[in-house]
């Protein structure tokens, strides 16, 4: 029973981390699309 639970925790953790890797760049690009163009090409402060 505890082995199943550990497996599920591992599945959720790995899936969440991998989802961040795959979704974050796309979400960031969507966010960037709402910024004014002069801010997009500006050095971060």
């Amino acid at each position, binding site marked *: 029973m505890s082995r199943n639970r550990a497996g*599920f925790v591992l*599945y*959720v953790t*790995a*899936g969440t981390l*991998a*989802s961040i*890797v*795959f*979704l974050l*760049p*796309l979400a*960031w*690009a969507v966010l*960037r699309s709402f910024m004014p163009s002069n801010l*997009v*090409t*500006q*050095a*971060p402060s």
Partner: protein
Amino acid sequence: MISQNERLSRPRAVTGPRAGGHRTRWGRLGAKRARTGMILVSPAFALVAVFVLFPLGFAVYISLTDWPLIGPYRFIGGRNYSELIHDPGFVHSVLFTLLYTAIVTGPILVVGYAMAVLVRANRRGSAFFRTAFFLPFIVGLATESFMLLLELQPDSGAVNYVLSRLGLAHPGTAWTVNYGLALTAICVFVIWFASGLTMMLLMAGMQGIPRELYESADVDGATWWQKERRITLPLLRRNIALALIISVIGSFLAFNQFYILTEGGPGTSTQPVVMWIYEEAFVQYHLGYATAGAIALVIVVGVISAVQFYLLRDERQVRR
């Protein structure tokens, strides 16, 4: 109740005084079936002939000329092909494409396999994870190449910002104008982009494996790794072959990411073979020469696919 097809394909005894009559009737039916088959296949054959065979034949013809896109042309035989072998630009682009293919193919398969293992069972959240992993492939390579170009800019891009915060890169690192950095960035980007498709192909294969095999392995006390090695991998041979072939052909035909991110630079150091063909055809206007390169690429891709099919063929096909 016997269907029309069954009636036509049923073997008949051809003995006795009426055997000749049966044979004639059977022959007539066979000819009718063949004619019907030909009529049914002809639309598909016409489409393939018009959109595949004719353009391919015409491309072979163009490759045997000095076609300049506009103006008169001459038939020059195999001169384009002999020049191709001695052209350092073409040879470099072929070698670069091979290097790029060798770098990305393995990681795409490994990452895709790992993700398929993670989401193959219908557990809570698996649909979300599948969508998340496959989304980069849906969005498209060209769009994401432009996104990456923006983020790779020195001083203003997010890549340099994050890496400099982690102490891994200088904020002014110019990724797209350095051969090693550009190749690294493009390879990581393509692995991120394409592993979702490999995951889908492998997951479909994994879901087709009967559960009873895993249950009997559990009864025998097999570990997770033993089940993967002895059950999943052997039964996934066809899916792995398909994923590998798609990945290798995709790498050989790579164009968008290099054109958008580096334009083949610095110099022509990151110029894949398709970009070389494009430059020769539509910048230099050497259409015959470029088409010879394209035909050579078709042959190389065909040979590699055939070898992969042969090496990864199913055991059942071998026994047959």
